[in-house]
């Protein structure tokens, strides 16, 4: 079970922002960072990416990850949330039921054609869902 977030401010922020930097560890222990789209659902952050990507390789070998979810760089009150926790690759069917699957949500600037392609790649198994359940959460930047 996901722990309760320390502050409701973090959860409120995560519901409204998708700009996510996933930090993984490479086999040599050095950090790598992957800009992604992250969706907060049911106490976890959900990502989707190619099964054969370096990030999936990294987080399969070392499931500890960090995610930095932030506003746009030019937002006057630049702020974000840092989650640290464990990542797992999960079947598409495990997406939270009864509400839009993470693959169905569309971040700003992404057309329906891209969303449809992503859903098709998920269905054929070329892309996978990654669920990150946070163990620690901290706020960064100018939160009210």
């Amino acid at each position: 079970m996901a722990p309760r977030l320390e502050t409701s401010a973090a959860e409120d922020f995560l519901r409204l922002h998708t700009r996510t930097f996933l930090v993984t560890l490479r086999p040599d222990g050095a950090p790598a960072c992957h800009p992604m789209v992250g969706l907060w659902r049911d106490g976890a952050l959900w990502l989707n990416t190619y099964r054969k990507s370096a990030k999936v390789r990294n987080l399969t070998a070392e499931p500890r990850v960090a995610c930095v979810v932030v506003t746009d760089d030019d937002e006057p009150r630049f702020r974000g949330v840092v989650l640290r926790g464990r990542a797992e690759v999960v079947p598409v069917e495990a997406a939270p039921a009864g509400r839009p699957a993470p693959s169905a949500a569309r971040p700003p600037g992404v057309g329906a054609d891209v969303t449809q392609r992503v859903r098709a790649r998920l269905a054929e198994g070329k892309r996978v869902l990654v669920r990150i359940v946070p163990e620690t959460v901290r706020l960064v930047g100018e939160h009210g």
Partner: protein
Amino acid sequence: MARQRVHMSAEGVAAFLAAKRRAIVGTRAPDGGPDGEPAALACAGGEVRFSVPRDGPTARNLRHDPRLVVSVEEFPSYAGIKGVAVHGRAVAVGDDGERTSFRVAAPRIESFDFAKMPR
């Protein structure tokens, strides 16, 4: 992704970084797991520099393990996605009592520009 086909030129990377004031810095914490934090970025003359709160997690982590990645991206639209990741080792270059500044030594650069993706 066939990254070699979508990477930026060295000049493109330098111009992209020079225009950015924020980055996400990825580090490894003393507990062994990865960590990350936004940083103030200042790149010029081919050098990548950033600052973070001196008592924050990034400065603490880098004292323990100087390996890092500095990640910068923009996402105005899907076809407009661009990003640069600078891997290297942090060297502290200044401290004003509140923030510590670092430069990235032995930088290794990865970049992507979705506008170059075959469609």
